[in-house]
């Protein structure tokens, strides 16, 4: 049977199991939207293409499935770029479909033409311009395969308008044959055996785990490894929900705003086992003194992550789930030696407990003004265990990572690598669309929130009951903090001037708005918000010049933390 290009596209999406897409229509995708009108695939109309991409990204982060976006050519396509780059940096599986001007017009500076393949080449895992309808079904198949396999990432398909309306027989391929793309899943058994030996010889081992744990769904394997060896676990921002943070072996976040015990443990360890992490500069601080006493094992599915920033004693390329399962099996048969290891590392755990007691993650509480950390503790206390938390980027993001004790996988969705302000609200809508029954909370700052606040309209249109907590200090707080600490308090362009009435803003969209200005109002506002159906915006007027601490100043080693203002 002959189908049009747009029909082939939607049929192919169906074959890939897609039941929900995020997008925004326009001239170059009008045919796709016409077919979508009668398609079983649901569509959520955001108010900006960037938000559609963040929503699809969060849909992928929370479900593990591939997020899908449709946007039109030109400005529609360029508006997706920040979202795509965000997903690329955090290795999120996503397929973005953009309309393009008809093939004969490509390169002619046609109306709403942009070379989106050229623009997104450095921020996609791969991209395609489909010039021949006969390539379309295979391209969609490949795009989904590339997006979800290996180290996941976004793939863009640019589809010219004339290809959408031309016709051809629809045959969806059963398999993908890409001679240049063969990810390594099975970890090398000999290397894994060496890793087991290195662990058994270690006296001060630390696990340093990243977002790869969630991507590989290796959470239980990680827990087994940590528990059977009693090795402590330091987590990156991307992995805060990958290991239960109330666990006695949890060290919390490491790096620039990491916990004292996490940074000290990494500095003093004799074996660092990096798993699905990439030695980002926000984690390592001054690179030459990062874990300088340690031998390093690095497990990652992407060979380019290994030895990119630090030298590694034992590299293992493979899927974390496979590698950790094999490593656990290898350690299980060495029961007596593992017992010796646990015995021999008792002192190390005591040292770490000493650091935990000496400088716990804490803040100076107040009876009058609202401390942002207190709001986050209350949100944790009053929300469900499986609540999904999204954030924007800045101080509130770090406080959330520090004080919200995540217990379940894929419950913390945040822009780690790119650090995209404006991520949290559209991310919350994407996660809520994926899980209509679960609690979804966007913890936000007043600066970030205004970067995509138009998505309140989307929440209302689809009645997505996202709860928004704005920690309002009327500052671009993180930059202000740097200006305070390193630029003699010259607050250049970080004060947001006239305060916004966020309650009225919520009401303008028909949402519920609540405000707390005193400490004793916080709990009541949160309870009321959680009890109110539909979208609710909570505005917390927090202490304005609160800082995120500890902090490792740029260029310093991670044990050189500033602990108090």
């Amino acid at each position, binding site marked *: 049977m002959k189908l049009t290009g747009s029909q082939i596209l939607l049929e192919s999406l169906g074959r890939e199991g897609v039941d929900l897409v995020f997008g925004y229509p326009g001239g170059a995708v009008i045919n796709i939207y016409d077919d979508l009108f009668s398609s079983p695939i649901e569509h959520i109309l955001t108010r900006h293409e960037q938000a559609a991409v963040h929503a699809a990204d969060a849909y992928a982060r929370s479900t593990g499935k591939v997020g899908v976006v449709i946007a039109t050519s030109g400005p529609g396509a360029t508006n997706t770029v920040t979202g795509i780059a965000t997903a690329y940096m955090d290795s999120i599986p996503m397929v973005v479909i953009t309309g393009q001007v008809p093939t004969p017009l490509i390169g002619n500076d046609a109306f709403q033409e942009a070379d989106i*393949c*050229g623009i997104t*080449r*450095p921020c996609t*895992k*791969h991209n395609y*311009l489909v*010039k021949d309808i006969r390539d379309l079904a295979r391209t969609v198949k490949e795009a989904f395969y*590339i997006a979800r396999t290996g180290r996941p990432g976004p793939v863009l398909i640019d589809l010219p308008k004339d290809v959408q309306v031309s016709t051809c027989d629809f045959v969806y391929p059963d398999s993908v044959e*890409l*001679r*240049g*793309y063969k990810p390594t899943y099975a970890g090398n058994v000999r290397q894994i055996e060496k890793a087991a030996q290195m662990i058994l010889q270690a006296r001060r081992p630390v696990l340093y785990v990243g977002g790869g744990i969630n991507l590989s769904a290796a959470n239980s394997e990680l827990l087994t490894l940590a528990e059977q060896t009693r090795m402590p676990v330091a987590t990156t921002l991307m992995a805060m929900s990958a290991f239960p943070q109330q666990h006695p072996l949890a060290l919390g976040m490491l790096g620039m705003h990491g916990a004292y015990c996490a940074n000290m443990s990494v500095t003093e360890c004799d074996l660092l086992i990096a798993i699905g992490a990439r030695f980002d500069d926000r984690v390592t601080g001054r690179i030459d003194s990062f874990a300088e006493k340690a031998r390093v094992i690095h497990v990652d599915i*992407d*060979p*380019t992550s290994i*030895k*990119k920033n630090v*030298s590694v004693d034992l590299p293992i390329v493979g899927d974390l789930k496979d590698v950790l399962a094999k490593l656990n099996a290898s350690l299980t048969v060495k029961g007596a030696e593992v017992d010796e290891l646990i015995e021999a590392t008792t002192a190390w755990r005591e040292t770490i407990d000493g650091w935990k007691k000496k400088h716990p993650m804490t803040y100076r509480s107040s009876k009058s003004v609202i401390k942002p950390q207190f709001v986050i503790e209350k949100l944790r206390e009053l929300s469900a265990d499986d609540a999904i938390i999204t954030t924007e980027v800045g101080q509130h993001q770090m406080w959330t990572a520090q004080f919200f004790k995540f217990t379940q996988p894929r419950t913390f969705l945040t822009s780690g690598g790119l650090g995209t302000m404006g991520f949290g609200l559209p991310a919350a809508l994407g996660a809520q669309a994926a899980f209509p029954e679960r609690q979804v909370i966007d913890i936000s700052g007043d600066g970030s929130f205004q970067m995509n606040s138009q998505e309140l309209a989307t929440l209302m249109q689809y009645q997505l009951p996202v709860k928004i907590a704005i920690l309002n200090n009327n500052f671009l707080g993180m930059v202000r903090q740097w200006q305070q600490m390193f630029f003699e308090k010259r607050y250049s362009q970080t004060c947001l001037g006239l305060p916004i009435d966020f309650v009225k803003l919520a009401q303008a969209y028909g949402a519920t708005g609540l405000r707390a200005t005193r400490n004793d109002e916080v709990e009541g506002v949160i309870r009321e918000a959680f009890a109110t159906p539909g979208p609710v915006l909570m505005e917390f007027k927090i202490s304005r010049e609160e800082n995120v601490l500890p902090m490792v100043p740029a260029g310093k080693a991670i044990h050189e933390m500033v602990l108090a203002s």
Partner: protein
Amino acid sequence: MKHTISVLVENEFGVLSRVSGLFSGRGFNIESLSVAPTLDPDTSRMTIVTTGDDRILEQITKQLNKLISTIKVVDFTAKDFIARELALIKVSTEAETRAEALRIVDIFRAKVIDVTPKTYTIEITGAPAKINGIIELLRPMGIKEIVRSGPVVIGRGAKGVAG
């Protein structure tokens, strides 16, 4: 250190910019790059000359391998290989230097492929060092224009890189 890398890629839309963009985006050097289809019209072979220490070269080869369009990457540096480059050189020739120019062409087994009353255009192929050699000798006469292809390389011996 200088490295010569062969990259077998899918002969498709945008593949050159994927490779060159990778180098510029990650701050790697490209000293020269040549590309043409192989026996298989779906495959192209690039020869890239780049510089960097071992760590950078390891990243370059890994990053090249990571591209979906890349089929195979071979760093020839530690291998026994033959490099050949083509250069076309337009050199000014006055009456008194024409004979000397021809002698140089002869010594280097080059060819004069275009002649005007005031210029010779010389074609030379060889290892990059040989091309550097003739350039040095011709330079005093006045080189008006020079085009170099960048080297292409092939391994010595019976074994071949398929594609």
